């Protein structure tokens, strides 16, 4: 069995698949890849099932080495790795792969043919960083076993469709309390703050008058835009709380979840209003691209 050795974990490197679903009624959010599009594409490129476990690297990538030759694909935000992204490549056993700092976005994914054979907790290999469910971030000296779960031959190179850029435009449908809010969220410039993490992206910009305190705590969805009393929106992210008491004027669409995973502190963002029908059309387009890989 091939193994992967972590020589340096970079800033924050974790094992992720598409998430731990079916536990929200126990207060456990799904976690999973912050940029699920990049994870799925990486797995498809190396011939894995799209949900195979892979590495998620944040801002500064890892240094790692395989015991034996391996076929990998790097996807997401390019890093100074000296290797091409969005295509399967062969790395030799014993050859160190240095992933540098991300060039434009926040996260890169390393999918390996066969998948990472990580132990599953409650049905998923995803690490929930904030609670420790599913494990912890990787450290120097960690060794991961590579699985044998490839399902087809590696694919040819795939460029990431540039028409889906820029990541600064977050399209959103109305949230459950949309009627409590006059205009204000859409079209105004916001900035991602340093306090952002896998639980949520905290934004700073025009304060939105929020009728907080009049609400009964209710379930919250991935991508929900909630507005606490200070009026500065928070976009709930993969490790979000399962319920919350702040009103939500909008919800980022499924087709733009990948952007949330690529936004970095100080990045500008702006919300654009779309209907649910438009959102589902955009999601279909993305799924068709994945099927074409």
């Amino acid at each position, binding site marked *: 069995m091939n193994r992967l050795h972590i020589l340096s974990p970079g800033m924050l490197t974790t094992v992720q698949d598409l998430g731990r679903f079916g536990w929200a009624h126990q*207060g456990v959010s799904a976690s999973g890849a912050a940029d699920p599009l990049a994870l799925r594409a990486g797995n498809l490129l190396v011939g894995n099932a799209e949900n195979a476990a892979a590495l998620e690297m944040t801002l500064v990538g890892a240094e790692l080495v395989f015991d034996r030759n391996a076929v990998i694909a790097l996807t997401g935000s390019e890093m100074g790795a000296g290797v091409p992204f969005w295509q399967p490549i062969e790395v030799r056993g014993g050859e160190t792969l240095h992933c540098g700092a991300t060039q434009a976005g926040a996260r890169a994914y390393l999918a390996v043919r066969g998948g990472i054979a990580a132990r599953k907790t409650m049905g998923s290999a995803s690490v929930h960083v904030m609670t420790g469910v599913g494990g912890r971030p990787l450290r120097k000296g960690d060794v991961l076993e590579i699985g044998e779960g490839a399902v087809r031959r590696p694919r040819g190179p795939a460029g990431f469709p540039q028409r889906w850029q820029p990541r600064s435009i977050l399209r959103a449908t109305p949230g459950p309390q949309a009627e409590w809010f006059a205009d204000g969220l859409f079209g105004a410039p916001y900035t991602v703050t340093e306090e952002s993490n896998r639980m949520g992206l905290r934004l700073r910009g025009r304060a939105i008058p929020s009728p907080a305190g009049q609400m009964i705590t209710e379930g*919250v969805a991935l991508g929900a835009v909630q507005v606490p009393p200070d009026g500065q929106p928070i976009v709930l992210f993969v490790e979000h709380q399962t319920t919350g008491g702040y009103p939500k004027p909008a919800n980022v669409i499924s087709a733009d979840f990948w952007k949330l995973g690529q936004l970095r502190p100080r990045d500008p963002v702006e919300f654009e209003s779309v209907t649910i029908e438009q959102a589902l059309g955009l999601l279909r387009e993305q799924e068709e691209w994945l099927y074409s890989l």
Partner: protein
Amino acid sequence: MRYTADKMTVRAASDRSLLVSFGENISTEAQRSVARLTHALQGVRGILNLHPAFVSVLVEFDPRLRQHSEIEALVHDRVETAAEHEDAPARLIEIPVRYDGPDIKDVAEHANLTVTQMVELHSSAEYEVAFVGFSTCFPYLSGLPAALATPRLKAPRKHVPAGSIAIGGAQAGVYPLASPGGWRLIGHTELRLFDPAGEPPGLLRMGDRVRFLPVAEERH
């Protein structure tokens, strides 16, 4: 007692979820409807997650497999046909507590009670798990004696230890894992509320009755 479809509101919360609400006020009836619907939607293909709360359930589904209209129709059908659970008596879970939390004096003072009276009041009440949510296996407990309702801290603590017994406004709760938190801490338990290898991983579930049992102070 049953909420029929016309007393229920269903609206889209996102392009992959619906929020089903049973009225605007916290009530035993609404709580029963939430529990019944959550139970009746377990394991439905295409439903990814159910988020029950005091008076509502957020239903998250895979938008590639299901449309909002289909899930809405399913919710109406399940509300009409869900089995009553009255025959299965609620479980009683006893939680041993050492009443030594950092906010115990503030809570007693707020209630105009001595610490001993406060402990007596808190441990003589019977609670019910309204729902489990917010963070991993966190139980929202209804049944806190009104005198013990205490506002949350103005600034949340960065670190609340696992097993902390807490009061947040009119609700009681227990922190299963160490986390930040703004509730008042009155004690702690050694009982594990979350075990990722357990089946199920959470000790408490919606509808369980809960009592707190004071355990003696440790002698130093």
